[in-house]
């Protein structure tokens, strides 16, 4: 015990057992409140049916806050994120691990680990085609109808996201059978094989009968994509779809995704930390850092005119083929502790372009062009002059 207290003074990561008990008791009170609200038997429709701000969007994230109530404190994984995904477009979300990009997508799917993880504030409006719903307030039973149907997700690791004891065909069939109960078995099988062909699996009849271990990583990822596409989704969330794959296979999968987007006309939310993949695939880019959006804009704006020091640092730290540099730029320091976030700009302690005002409150998003936003004091009109001088 004594050791813990001694360390506690030196390191914010350590708290005493007593303190931890107090925090978890408090957290339980808060999360129970949320759970109670969610588990009501009847949730009136008026609570979750809303309207889109712009009917051309598929998804609108509006000031989303997703917190995790852990025993050492509240982790604000997503802390006020707002962006839109227009119909038929690809939006790329970039950031380091732990910056909240996956939690953003999980909030959209209502897959955040409950009861610790809760959407505390904000809304995610999703256009299902015939009505607009707020995903964060949807009852679980209604959400299950949406998930895998209008909203589908391709996970990072094709190795672990398929069930090893069922045949490929059965696993894809299941998705279709669940969402189209009126279809009979033969039609479902026909649809599955059609889907497998769509994602470029040549021997689709054979693969239908195979087990996941008989396929390579790239093939498994194709099966995952087929599963995601099986019900004609409005939005595909691709959470690092190519990180676990080789470059040549990555090129195949990216080609496939690009081709499919055109063919079935759905939107893609692409989560990755590879800027190269983003540049190639995305129409819009959202750069996240420590649970907040630091910069967003079209792909051309972000790559030709990166404005936030973090975006600039991220671009410089990746070696590019054909561009020889003496020494790689590396962003100094590390991400602040997610439990005790500072009040000032989260990037200030690692930033090399700091101004005096940066010690003030967290900067608001500044609009640079109709689509380009950045959250940095250096782009406030009043400080821009100072920066130049």
């Amino acid at each position, binding site marked *: 015990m004594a050791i813990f207290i001694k360390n506690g003074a030196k390191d914010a*990561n350590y708290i005493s057992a007593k303190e931890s008990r107090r925090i978890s008791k408090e957290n339980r009170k808060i999360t129970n409140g949320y759970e109670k609200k969610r588990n009501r038997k009847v949730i009136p429709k008026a609570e979750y049916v809303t309207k889109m701000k712009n009917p051309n969007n598929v998804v609108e994230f509006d000031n989303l806050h997703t917190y995790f109530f852990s025993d050492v404190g509240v982790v604000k994984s997503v802390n006020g994120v707002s962006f839109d995904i227009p119909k038929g477009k690809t939006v790329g979300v970039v950031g*380091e*691990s732990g910056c909240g990009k996956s939690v953003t997508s999980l909030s959209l799917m209502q897959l955040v680990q409950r009861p610790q993880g809760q959407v505390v504030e904000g809304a995610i409006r999703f256009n299902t085609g015939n009505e607009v719903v707020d995903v964060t307030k949807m009852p679980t039973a209604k959400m299950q109808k949406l998930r895998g149907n209008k909203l589908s997700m391709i996970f990072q690791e094709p190795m672990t996201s398929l069930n090893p004891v069922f045949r490929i065909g059965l696993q894809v069939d299941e998705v279709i059978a669940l969402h189209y109960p009126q279809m009979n078995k033969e039609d479902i099988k026909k649809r599955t094989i059609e889907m497998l062909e769509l994602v470029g699996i040549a021997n689709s009849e054979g693969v239908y009968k195979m087990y996941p271990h008989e396929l*390579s*990583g*790239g*093939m498994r990822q194709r099966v995952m994509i087929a599963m995601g596409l099986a019900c004609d989704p409005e939005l595909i969330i691709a959470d690092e779809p190519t990180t676990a794959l*080789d*470059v*040549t*296979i*990555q*090129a*195949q999968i*990216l*080609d496939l995704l690009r081709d499919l987007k055109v063919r079935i006309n759905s939107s893609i939310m692409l989560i990755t*930390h*590879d*800027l*190269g*993949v*983003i*540049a*190639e695939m995305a129409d819009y880019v959202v750069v996240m850092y420590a649970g907040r959006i630091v910069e967003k804009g079209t*792909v*051309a704006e972000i*790559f*030709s005119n990166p404005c936030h020091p973090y975006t600039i*640092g*991220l*671009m410089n*730290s*990746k*070696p*590019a*083929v*054909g561009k*020889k*540099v003496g*020494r*790689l*730029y*590396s*962003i100094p320091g*590390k991400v602040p502790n997610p439990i005790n976030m500072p009040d000032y700009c989260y990037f200030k302690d690692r930033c090399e372009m700091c101004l005096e005002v940066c010690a003030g409150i967290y900067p608001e998003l500044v609009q640079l062009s109709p689509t380009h936003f950045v959250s940095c004091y250096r782009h406030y009109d009043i400080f821009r002059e100072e920066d130049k001088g």
Partner: protein
Amino acid sequence: MADNIIEVKHLKKYFPIKSGPLGKRKGTVKAVDDVSFTIKKGTTMGLVGESGCGKSTTGRTILRLLDKTEGEVLFYEKEVHSLHKKELRELRTKMQIIFQDPYSSLSPRLPVGEIIGEAVKEHNLVPKDKYEEHLNRIMLSCGLQVYHKDRYPHEFSGGQRQRICIARALALNPEFIVCDEPVSALDVSIQAQIINLLEDLQAEYGLTYLFISHDLSVVEHICDTVGVMYLGGLVEMGSTEDIFSNPLHPYTKALFSAIPVPDPLAKLNRIVLKGNIPSPANPPKGCKFHTRCRECMEICKTKAPNEKNMGNGHMVSCHLYDK
């Protein structure tokens, strides 16, 4: 003293495929099939290729973590695989490895100081009274703080753990380090830190690296020479400049064109390889790449190409360059 620290000559490593209760041998996987290269002291050689092409097996066979099937591995002109137990023990301190996954390659039950110092104690590399000093120096040079010694691996982030792995390898004053995908499990900004650290350490201690990676941009940045592997064999080898500015083998060309370029305006001129890498248990006849090659000719299907020197040590195995 010889210029070459490592010489690999016609190295082969086959794994038997066994089946049935008696372990009857059904076939062999030719993981590494006739690979030869040399690494000069103080330089970095890169090995690139798809997963399953035998890069890691090559690295491990050089260190004798795996026994070779045929061929020679010379470390300062001494055959590594014929050393006796005692000599091998001595050699182990000279050759080290950094693994890909810093999450699974550190014992969760040992404090960091012990992880780094365990081998130093075992080999009696430094006198007892200098031990702490040695440990502190190594940790500081790898960007770790001295007070990290009493902490356990789970208290560290991925980048910090990779630093621990590097410190563990470095603590034995090695001359040659095999880096088996040291940055592929890390974030972009952390990657840059680790790559810079590896470069600094190379300059400080005169290390030689064998850098195994599938990330070509990292390889171009850190390596002096590059070998491109496909299905157990080297298809192209040469200086980094030659390989990247003038790739000759169709596989190398396809590999390079597959790299996503972080520039939305860049023109895509991509050669997409069809299909998967064939099984190394049953490689295609003739040139191993002919099943996926765009420029495949009749001769490729029957005859395996020889290695040809295109000048300046740029070696390529392809019938396109037969004259």
